[in-house]
């Protein structure tokens, strides 16, 4: 079972991969409150999907979890799981606790 901290680390690693290709003055902060998708987010659509892809890959390859972060379950939630690092972390935690 992944812990909240471990999931956060996976997300931060994905943010780090994005930052490696961004200018020094355009770095995405790795904090729980960092906005991922929405009006306050620094990520455009391409960067956001890249982050989701990297997080899914890490969950699958490194932890054997076949989890999709963009499916009907994400749509059916009253609050978007994509708002911030914290909401995405909590959504992944919920999925992993529920068996993916």
């Amino acid at each position: 079972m992944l812990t909240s901290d471990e999931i956060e680390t996976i997300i931060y690693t994905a943010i780090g991969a994005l930052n490696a290709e961004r200018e020094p003055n355009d770095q995405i902060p790795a904090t729980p409150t960092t906005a991922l998708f929405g009006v306050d987010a620094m990520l455009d659509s391409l960067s956001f999907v890249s982050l989701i892809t990297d997080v899914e890959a890490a969950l699958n390859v490194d932890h054997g979890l076949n989890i999709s972060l963009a499916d009907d379950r994400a749509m059916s939630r009253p609050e978007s799981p994509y708002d911030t690092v914290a909401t995405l972390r909590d959504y992944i935690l919920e999925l992993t606790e529920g068996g993916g």
Partner: protein
Amino acid sequence: MIPQPATTLRGRYVNLRPLRVADAELTFAWRQSERTAFLHRGAQSVAEQAAWIGSRPDNERNFVIELASGQPVGMLSLIAIDMANRHAEPARFLIGEPAAVRGIPAAVEAMKLLYQLAFDELQLQRLYGTVASDNTLMTKWQKYLGMQEEGRLRRHLFLGGHFQDAICLGLLEHEYRTRSLPRMNALIGQT
């Protein structure tokens, strides 16, 4: 014969409005930005851009991506539409006004509208295209939204001052319905 209703494709956040010659100045300005580094060389003047728009062949559908407010924010095309073999190529994808689409899933919904045109209206079997190998974000994006990597044309493109591979991507009709649509809907629905 390719049906040419030339109508606007309407979504929740964005619409795809047929490209017009009157869009030449705006689209030419977009083509001058750094964001077009991975597109092929375009027109060199507004007049050339207008001539290019005016000469689009029947086997293309060229669109301006507009917000619901009517503000144009980008462009997207379906080209090389082949009704005999039932395939076509999404192309010329450009968000020209990134600040205007911040927080709006404009890119995903624009592509969804184009896929709906291809698979639902034109009843194509396959979409395909190439992405420059340096364009890693676009490659990831296309794959996440359902495209499969089908091959690689080595040193096929000269972009950014050096040769790059062209990554060949393809999407079949059933992959669109089972893989692309659920992901697109999730990304569009959750903002």
